[in-house]
């Protein structure tokens, strides 16, 4: 399948982060066209386009917008730029290379849902990206795309860039709203969903950076044009963040449905050091591991789910034959332990317990019952946590136990990590 770059089509243009350059590539034409339309028509257009949220869950964007209760104002749009899923670095790339594309998307979404104050919640670690967006907002304000009576069309919109301060949980939409309100970033009970009762108790839409970056293109080219790209249930393209044991890691924009093999072998240059592929993980830290036999699965929400994992936020972590799957799972579990907000017991205690057991495996102190104990703890976290952080902390380790149980056994019988021993012997 041929690649049709959409979001990244102009990324080779120098100084694309500047307003004038962005306008020369057709920038803000989508927003201008949107302002000529009725907001409801815009919502319908996005619904018809089949655009699904790029933050991880893949929820249809137009549907999310249409859940806002009629006649309740003010309404807010929050752009989720708190990208923190291990393995993901796509939103960072979009904000760095073309901050105006993101901002234009925010303006279109705001207009469509009738919002006059939008927020961008950006993770604290993304300082250069914060600066790029800050400049873009300033430029757009001066050019009249932002502020009172935008482009003389009687629409007011302001955007506040809000910097987080190092909490993965704030990427979860209700935790993000709590954090934006100034509190500790703990998730809230759903329902009520943010669309009904979100920021400051008002109707709120939370959309991912990549999701909104698609909007200018959809508005300019139409819903049918967008629908024709990708698969029937997964319109458009996605940015895939490839990392790990490949020759050319980085961001690749792929048409939805393209086989995973094409991404890893053609674009990533295959597994590095002439080694064999052992496993790969789509979606990011949360998602289940897949095997070489899954290489022909399409890069698409539904296809990857059918194969037993989830496309999540578009990461592709590649692992070669020398990878210790136990250690990889240990890192992720420790990550979730570190990032658990502490609000609910299954996640707070469960991730801590799992991390301890994983340390036992790597430290050569694991006991024969520890594999089943991990599965049991995982079972008791998943579906019993307050928010998806706890659930997701169990998916990768449980899938690794399913496919690589013998590696756990080896850690027990050899009293430590067999892969580290091989590496040390090679050095000696």
């Amino acid at each position, binding site marked *: 399948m041929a690649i049709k770059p959409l979001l990244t089509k102009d990324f080779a243009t120098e100084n694309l982060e500047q307003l004038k350059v962005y306008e020369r590539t057709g920038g803000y034409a989508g927003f201008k066209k949107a302002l000529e339309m009725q907001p409801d028509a815009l919502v319908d257009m996005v619904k018809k386009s089949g655009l699904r949220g790029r933050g991880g869950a893949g929820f249809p964007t137009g549907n999310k917008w249409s859940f806002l209760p009629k006649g309740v104002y003010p309404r807010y749009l929050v752009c989720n730029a708190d990208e923190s899923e291990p393995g993901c670095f796509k939103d960072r790339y979009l904000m760095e290379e073309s901050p105006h594309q993101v901002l234009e998307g925010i303006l279109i979404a705001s207009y469509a849902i009738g919002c006059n104050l939008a927020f961008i919640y950006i993770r604290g670690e993304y300082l250069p990206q914060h600066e790029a967006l800050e400049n873009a907002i300033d430029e757009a304000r001066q050019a009249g795309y932002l502020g009172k009576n935008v482009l003389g069309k009687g629409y007011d919109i302001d955007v506040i860039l809000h910097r987080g301060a190092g909490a993965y949980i704030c990427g979860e939409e209700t935790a993000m709203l709590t954090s934006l309100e*100034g509190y500790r970033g703990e998730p809230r009970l759903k329902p009520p969903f943010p669309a009904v009762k979100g920021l400051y108790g008002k109707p709120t839409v939370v959309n991912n950076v990549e999701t909104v970056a698609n909007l200018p293109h959809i508005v300019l080219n139409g819903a049918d044009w967008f629908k024709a790209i990708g698969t029937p249930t997964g319109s458009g393209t996605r940015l895939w963040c490839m990392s790990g044991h490949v020759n050319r890691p980085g961001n690749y924009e792929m048409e939805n449905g393209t086989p995973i093999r094409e991404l890893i072998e053609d674009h990533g240059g295959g597994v590095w050091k002439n080694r064999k592929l052992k496993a790969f993980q789509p979606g990011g830290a949360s998602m289940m591991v897949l095997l070489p036999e899954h290489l022909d699965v399409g890069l698409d929400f539904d296809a990857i789910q059918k194969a037993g994992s989830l496309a999540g936020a578009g990461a592709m972590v590649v692992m070669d034959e020398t990878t210790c799957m136990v250690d990889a799972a240990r890192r992720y579990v420790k990550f979730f332990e570190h990032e658990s907000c502490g609000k609910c017991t299954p996640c707070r205690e469960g991730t801590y317990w799992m991390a301890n057991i994983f340390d036992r495996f790597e430290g050569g102190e694991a006991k024969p019952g520890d594999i089943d104990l991990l599965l049991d703890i995982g079972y008791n976290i998943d579906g019993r946590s307050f928010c998806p952080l706890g659930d997701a902390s169990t998916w990768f380790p449980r899938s690794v136990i399913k496919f690589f149980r013998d590696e756990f056994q080896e850690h027990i019988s050899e009293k430590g990590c067999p892969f580290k021993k091989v590496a040390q012997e090679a050095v000696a």
Partner: protein
Amino acid sequence: MPLAKPTVTQIQDLAARYPSKQSAIIPALWAVQHEQGYVTEEAMAEIAQHLGLPPSLIEATASFYSMFLTRPEGRHDVVICINAPCMLRGADETVAYLERQLGVRDGGTTADGAITWHSTIECLGACGGAPMMQVDHRFEENLTPERIDAIIERLRKEPAPHAAAPKRAEAIAPAKPEKVRAATRPRAKKVQD
């Protein structure tokens, strides 16, 4: 140390900008950290006063977020990721090298007060350039021993990145880090009382 006037003005502007003044807490904490290098209990009380909120609210929020520092650190901040995607490309070896070159353990500050470094399990969003680290919140990717050496050499010479940071460097007593820590953590004592 009372907050500088521009910081106070900034906090007041923030309070007016958001629909709720409480939303200004995190940006206000950033403003204070930007000025003073870290956030003391005294500064949190001052934020509370300017926002018209109880100090406990400011502390509750500040203590949740890992990027707010409660004690002075080195002039430069180096954070290196050891999560799985970085591990696959040699983050552990990079951490060992950095530790050897700096001569201080994870979480420590070099004797000259130039660099505080720590490894983190929190992904920093540069898996495609692993092994990586953030130096004063800016990305350094595809690290090699030579690149690390060059970065360390540069940081040892460079002043702190923020305008008001020399104050922060003065505040450091590298010989007595434990004393500094005790002085900025009075809260534990209160609980004992």
